[in-house]
Each structure stands twice: as structure tokens, then as C-alpha cells.
């Protein structure tokens, strides 16, 4: 992928609570709209983020633990990096991880996972901007 300058970045730092998926869905809808995605594509991004959040919330992390989501706008794509996912789910060690990986890979153009301190992971979701006629 050709390197392109980041146009803008939005960061969300959220406490993990059961309402997080709702908040993140709303924020992602707004971000996707600003990026130029249509409703189908915006829904894809919302689905991807929701699945990641569910993984995060399912791990019984201590209350108050932060989840950080960074939306980066590029001319040809939107990148969303989510920290801190509690395990390397892309390995597909169990059914839930395989399910999450399947969904994410279907709705995003690229999904990458990198280790961060404290044994956690950050997940980058890339969705290319389509050229609408």
C-alpha cells in the first residue's frame, strides 16, 4: 500500500462498560460518514468494532481498564486501531476467536494484530474507501 499522509486522527479512550458497544457504534457511524463510507460500509465498520469490544469485555478485565480506539483518516482508507485486546485472537485458538476473526476479515479489507505491553494486543482494522460512481 502506498504511503499516504494522515489527514486527521480521532482518539477515544473509554472505560470498559457494557454500554461501550453502543457508544462505539455511534462514534464509528459518525467517523465512517465523515470518511465517506456509505451505510453498508459504515455498518461493516460498526460490526468489526463491536466484535472487538465484545472480545475485550468478555475477558473480565478489572473495572476501569481503558480501551483506546484511534481512527486515522487517509485519502484512500480509514484505519482503526484498538488497544487493549486481551489476547491474540487471530490465532483462532477457540471458537469465539475463530468467529471474531471470520467476521472481521469479512467486513474489513485488512486486519492486523500486534503485541503491546502487559500481554495485550492492539488490532488494526483497515477499510479502503470505495470509488462510488
Amino acid at each position, binding site marked *: 500500500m502506498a504511503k499516504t499522509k494522515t489527514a486527521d486522527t480521532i482518539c477515544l479512550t473509554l472505560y470498559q462498560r457494557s454500554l461501550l458497544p453502543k457508544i462505539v457504534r455511534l462514534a464509528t457511524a459518525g467517523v465512517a*460518514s465523515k470518511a465517506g463510507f456509505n*451505510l*453498508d460500509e459504515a*455498518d461493516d465498520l460498526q460490526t468489526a468494532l463491536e466484535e472487538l469490544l465484545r472480545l475485550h469485555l468478555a475477558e473480565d478485565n478489572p473495572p476501569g481498564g481503558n480501551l483506546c480506539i484511534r481512527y486515522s483518516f487517509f485519502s484512500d482508507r480509514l484505519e482503526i486501531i484498538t488497544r487493549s485486546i486481551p489476547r491474540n485472537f487471530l490465532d483462532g485458538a*477457540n*471458537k469465539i476467536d475463530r468467529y471474531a476473526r471470520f467476521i472481521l476479515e469479512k467486513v474489513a479489507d485488512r486486519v492486523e494484530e500486534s503485541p503491546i505491553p502487559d500481554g495485550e494486543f492492539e488490532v488494526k482494522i483497515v477499510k479502503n474507501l470505495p470509488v462510488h460512481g
Partner: protein
Amino acid sequence: MPRRANNTLNREAIQSLFRTYQKTRDPGIKNVLVDAHLDLAHSLARRFLNRGEPLDDLVQVASMGLLKAIDRFDPDRNVQFTTYAVPTIVGELKRYFRDRVSTIRLPRGLRERTHALNNAVQKFSQQHGRSPNVAEIAREMSISEEEVIEGLESSESVSVASLNTSSGEESDLSLLDIIGGEDKALQILDERLSLAGAMSFLSQREQSLLYLRFVEGLSQTEIAGRLRISQMHVSRLLRRTLQSLRQNLTTNKAT
């Protein structure tokens, strides 16, 4: 519940049966009265179609209302049974939607906006052959993009229709009939997800929806066109199906 033949009892016979039933509470007479008015219950149930609930469920609810009306009707009052029964049955149907369908009661303005949004998205998709973006819908409806997003998200609080829902006002055709191929969907999805049978907890209709979206790779708008429902409806159905699958996987954590 199967539809019955039209009422063949005249008004006097009906009133006479009600008087006898009022005195005796004879289940046999009650059955006759139920049979005589099932068409009424069916007709009222159909008025509530396209609100996201299967016709069979609505008929069941309307039939419960009919039973209540029969038990409570006083034949000595100078009023026809149907005059008494209609508001009772409609009340039962409305209560059903109030209690079991809407998870959150939205303000009227937001409900109307959500409905208008749904129509605008559908109209745009038909005209342009693709899903609109938020800005396009905002322009179409002369509202702000924030209001569009608010309406889209609040639509999640409106009833989530099942795939058993009739696809049109005049049709009792299940969406499953339109999708078809559910056996193939189950096999392929289970293989793709390597979930070793987890898919079997979903209904065949839910499996078919996942198949269309994640195996055939159809967009929500394309699925909406195939199923003759709105993109927003497909979005809600997909979300609920994914929630069901995730919930099942979480409950059964085995590898």
C-alpha cells in the same frame, strides 16, 4: 392457527349462544363462539403486519384477545359482540407490541424520523443501485448528518423483525422461501468458521442470512433487494443474528 370458515351463525343465534355461555360457561359453546369469530381475529392481526412480527404470532395474540372478549362480553347490553370485541383484540395486539417488541420507547419525533429514514434509504438504493452515505440521506431529507446518524442508531431500538416476517403486506411468503438453500448455508458456514456445529443453534433462516452476507459476500443493500426488505432491516437482522451466535459461543466455550 388455521383460519376457519366464515361465520355462518346469524346475529340472533350468536346472541343466544352468548346468553347460554354467560350462564353455563360451557367450553363447547365457547368453542363455537371462537370458531365463529376467528376470521375477525385474523383480520385484525393482519392490520399489524409489517411491524416485524410473524403473522402466526399476531394471530395467536389476537386469538387471546378474542377469548378474553368472549369471556367478558355481556349479551344483555344492547351492543353487538364484534363492536365489543374489536377494541379488546386490538388492545391485546397493541399491548403485545408495547411489552414484547419495543425495547425502548422512542420519542414520537424520533420514531417518525427513523421511519422516514428507512424510506429514504430504500428509495435512494433503488434509484442508484447502491447504499447511500449519511450526507446523501441528510440532503435528501433536509436534516443534519447528526440527525441521520441518531435516527439510524435509534432504529436499533425499534422492533427487530425475525426472518419469519412476511415480506409484504399482501404476501404470507416467509423470507426463508425467498432465500432458500439453507442446508448448503449451514454446511458452508460451519466449515468456513470451523465452529464444529455452533451454527446449528441458529435458526435456518439466520444461517441463510449469514450465508448471503459472509459467504456469498452480498452487501446489505443487495440482500435487502433480494429479500424485498429495507437495508436498515437487514442491518438489524444481521446484528441480532451475530449476537445470537456470539452468545452461544460464549456460553459453550469449548474449542
